[in-house]
């Protein structure tokens, strides 16, 4: 049984991505008791799946390392993975939260030595790589994963594969009798850092994501760049595994469109600008990027990145909402059709690979979960006094980039502390 000590002076942070880690750490480093829960087996969220950050082109794992070190060093912060919120009742200063904790089948004894992973043969689509490769049924989600502890896929439990894993472990770390648990917590404030998910590209029928393997999403493109990732760091066309050198980026894939997502996802323009630098990084002058866009929203100091990319003769900007993506017979090339509105030129441009700058949408449907939060039309949490002691952090509140999400999460930590300080009597109620 997971023992969790929580009181109405505890802050619960839901979601262990960059926003949740930040909110939890910032509050804990102010001396508050914090519980950070994450539904996946390890912390990190979406940023752990990025190759680089814009505009600096630095690596997300660098900041992750610092945050993990802060987490390891902070005794006021308790991390619970594989945990999800089933329900919340109560009010600011006194919430009752029901958690369900899924079994990991691996206990604290795990040293991450990897013997179980070697013993097991069954493999599944690797979530960390958006299914672009397989991982074993006993696995460490990724190299920097925290907790640094293996996890057994529930689909092998009850099969001889799980027994193989158990037999391979010298440390009695594998416990196949682990059960799902229900835990009830009392907390004073809740920070929802539940993050985002990529919009379902299959829904954008004209772009043929479901039909043409050479149409991929921006998040998948990130994984391709990873040297230890599914393509070994090469930009390979899924259809024939050839290197793709002439790459089209379609902006607002799902975003700014009443049929899909009404909102602008904010980060996709800058993410694409970043990804054009990946193409240059791989191929130099042999790589070509074409960006099909409505507006390039490289806001504030991201403008520098836009100007830099604009100067690259191998990057072309076409002001156009692409009408359709068709298939060129024989080559497998996706062909982009539409009108360049600057001068009204029709085009049918073949490319090796199409990257959809996929939109951001909230990863949790709070209305469905029955959690009393004020939501806007896109399902993001609005800052509303009616939310009481519950606050959004990061992309649960709006589409935004990492830097802004961290900034927002830091603010959320203070809002939660204000509630706790009332409970504690530090501030008059």
């Amino acid at each position, binding site marked *: 049984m997971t023992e969790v000590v929580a009181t109405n002076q505890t802050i619960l942070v839901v979601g262990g991505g960059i926003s949740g880690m930040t909110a939890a750490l910032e509050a804990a480093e102010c001396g508050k008791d914090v519980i950070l829960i994450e539904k996946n087996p390890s912390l990190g969220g979406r940023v752990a799946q990025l190759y680089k950050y814009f505009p600096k082109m630095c690596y997300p794992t660098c900041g992750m390392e610092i945050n993990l070190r802060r987490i390891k060093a902070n005794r006021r912060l308790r991390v619970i993975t594989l945990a999800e919120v089933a329900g919340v009742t109560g009010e600011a200063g006194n919430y009752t939260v029901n958690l369900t904790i899924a079994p990991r089948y691996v206990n*604290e004894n795990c040293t991450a030595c990897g013997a179980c992973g070697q013993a097991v043969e069954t493999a599944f689509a690797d979530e960390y790589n958006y299914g672009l490769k397989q991982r074993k049924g006993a696995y460490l989600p990724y*190299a920097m994963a925290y907790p640094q502890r293996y996890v057994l896929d529930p689909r092998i439990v009850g099969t001889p594969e799980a027994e193989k894993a158990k037999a391979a472990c010298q440390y009695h770390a594998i416990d196949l009798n682990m059960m799902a648990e229900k835990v009830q917590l009392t907390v004073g404030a809740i920070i929802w850092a539940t993050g985002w998910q990529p919009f379902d590209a299959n829904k954008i029928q004209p772009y043929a994501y479901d039909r043409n393997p050479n149409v991929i999403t921006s998040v998948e493109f990130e994984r391709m760049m990873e040297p230890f990732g599914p393509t070994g760091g090469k930009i390979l066309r899924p259809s024939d595994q050839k290197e793709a050198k002439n790459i089209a980026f379609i902006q607002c894939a799902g975003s700014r469109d009443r049929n899909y997502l009404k909102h602008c996802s904010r980060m996709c323009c800058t993410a694409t600008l970043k990804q054009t630098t990946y193409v240059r990084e791989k191929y130099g002058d042999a790589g070509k990027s074409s960006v099909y866009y409505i507006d390039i929203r490289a806001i504030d100091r991201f403008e520098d990145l836009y100007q830099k990319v604009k100067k690259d003769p191998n990057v072309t900007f076409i002001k156009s909402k692409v009408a359709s993506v068709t298939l060129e017979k024989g080559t497998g090339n996706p062909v982009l059709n539409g009108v360049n509105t600057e001068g009204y030129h029709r085009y049918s441009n073949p490319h090796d690979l199409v990257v959809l700058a996929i939109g951001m949408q909230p990863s949790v449907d709070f209305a469905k979960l029955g959690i009393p939060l004020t939501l806007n039309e896109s399902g993001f949490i609005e800052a509303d006094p009616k939310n009481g002691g519950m606050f959004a952090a990061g992309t649960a509140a709006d589409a935004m980039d990492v830097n802004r999400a961290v900034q927002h999460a830091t603010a959320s930590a203070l809002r939660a502390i204000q509630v706790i300080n009332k409970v504690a009597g530090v501030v008059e109620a």
Partner: protein
Amino acid sequence: MADKKFGAYICKGCGIGERLNIAQLGTVAKREGKMAFVKDHEFLCNQDGVNLIQTDITAGEVTHLMIAGCSKRAKTEAFNFDSVAMSRANLREGVIWVRPNTPDNQETTQEMAEDYVRMACAEVRFMNAPTPSQEQGRTAHILVVGGGVTGMTAALEAAKAGYQVTLVEKSPALGGMAAYLYKRIPNRTPFADPQETGVEELAKQAQSHKRITVHLNAKVTDTSGAPGRFSVTIAKDGSTVTETVGSVIQASGFTPYDATKLPEFAYGKTPDVVDQLGLEKLAKQANGGVIKRPSDGKPVEKVIFIQCAGQRSDKDGHLSYCSGHCCLTSIKQAQYFKAANPNVDTMILYTELRTPGFGGEDFYRSGQEKGVTFTKGVASEVTAGGGKLTVKFKDLILNEDVTDEADLVVLATGMVPVSGVNIEATPEVQATMESVLNLSYRQGKDMPQLVNGFTDSHFICFPYETRRTGIYAAGPVRRPMDMTQAIEDATGATLKAIQALENAALGRAAHPRSGDLSFPRFRKEGCTQCKRCTVECPFGAINEDEKTFPVFNEGRCRRCGTCMGACPVRVISFENYSIDTVGQALKAINVPDELSEKPRILLLACENDTYPALDMVGMNRIEYSAFVRIIPVRCLGSVNTIWITDALNGGYDGIILMGCQKGDNYQCHFVKGSELAHIRMSKIDDTLKQLNLQSERVMTCEIAITDLQRVPQIINEMEATIKRIGLSPFKF
């Protein structure tokens, strides 16, 4: 502290027991490492192993422990003991996982492990458990400089959390730039119409809050001290008050770009060309009625908004950046006209319309629905004459030059941060600048600026990272932003300010070594007043006294050790990290003689990025040379050249320093550490020459945390280099 009691614990788990001769490691720890006892365990990180250690600690058997097993980054929850000094020998990620398990490699693998045990024993012998800085107490009081929306929000948010606030505003009233606005961009659903600014209400709340003291017509004339004990002098009405505060928020805001620098748009030549603030003034005058043009009071029938006026441009005197809010502001202002008379022709001339997020896009849509025209184009000229303004622009959609007429033109000019003195400017230029904080730091009067005068952090993951501990910038002085963003930003900065003072109260470090209790200890007798520590500290933590001895402001220190690396006479160290902890460790290894053909390579690895990369190299079972000996350092900036000299004299054949990216796009978590290390190492050639050694024996490189292939390659190349140039003659 009572007598030091040394004990070694060796873990046999994860294959260490099978791959290594544990008894031999124990002998090394005892005989050479001078450990009083050695215990081994099948599986040290499990409860039984941890209990074994904890029992010894509780019984007073051990105060200084050396744990040999996995990397110091692994199993930190298990090996988490209070008030003891602890070192860890990395036998797993650092030895058995990077060496092939074959009989012919066994000897060198065992040698590697034995050296790591020697090194960890030496390290812990010279370590102490740190005791916190006592220089400051808990001062639950925050200074906020600037009384605009950002400053008022920060003050109120801090007060709501229970902290006292002193709010200093230079003008006669609170409100800042937002006070000039007729309405604001909406921040709540339905994002359809301009919204009341709420500035008056905010000012009222700030002024009436019992924990907030507001000083109007006031300026900060001096700021000294450190987090937890800043002393701030505020001048007001010819007199001064001095207050002690725990931390500082700089919300000094922005000024509008000087539109007279845009003569092509006739600003200043006719009153009918205004900037966005000028339009707000007209809207306020109209107060919901028809907006009239200033020249003759005629109701405006056609208005053209020129976006990016003097910004997003590399022309001389223009702003290169985008100010972020102006697209939404123009949409808001166009709606002022539409609200009074839907027939007014409002055209927004833009190149990239930037209305991000949910609310931004919704408000843009609202503008479209109300009939605001959006034209993609670039304006080249505005002229006045005949009671009209003529606007020339290139329509980028029609791809043609267009001449249009309007009654009023609004220039969407940018934000210029009020960040005080640019401490990197020449003294003459600095003298012409008005300071915001008047820091009495030897490094300059204000916060270092990142780019274009903004005091932003350079780190994506840490937007409030600052180079002046306990001082946080918020709002448009940090980065161009709109009011919604400024309110969020103020709230975040307030959290950091609270955190800084709470950490200072406990004597703990601020980010990125959060919670670290060590701080620099300084042996004044040995100091030669060379000032290198004060000059090189990336955080401006060190002042000088009247005799030019360094004064360490412990609360300002970020514990990177750059001062320790800088000190030529080695009088600066930390309790648990010092010239000795590293110097003795590197000297502790067993150097084989020249005939053995076994070189030794020292790798000093930044623990923030390189050391994790090395761990992942191990996890991926990528091999590297058995001849390397790795020591993690807090930052490459903490590397003192004496370590290099000692290593060369001690018979190492090659030395590699691995740190983070330096330069303008630095990744170094301590800003300058890696760069300083590179500079210092560029001068090591003299030492090499004196010793008659080849310069290839020492190299410094920039490493990213993802360089899992490059790091082993560099190590192996050094082994190859040594093979080529021969072993060092300094073997003993």
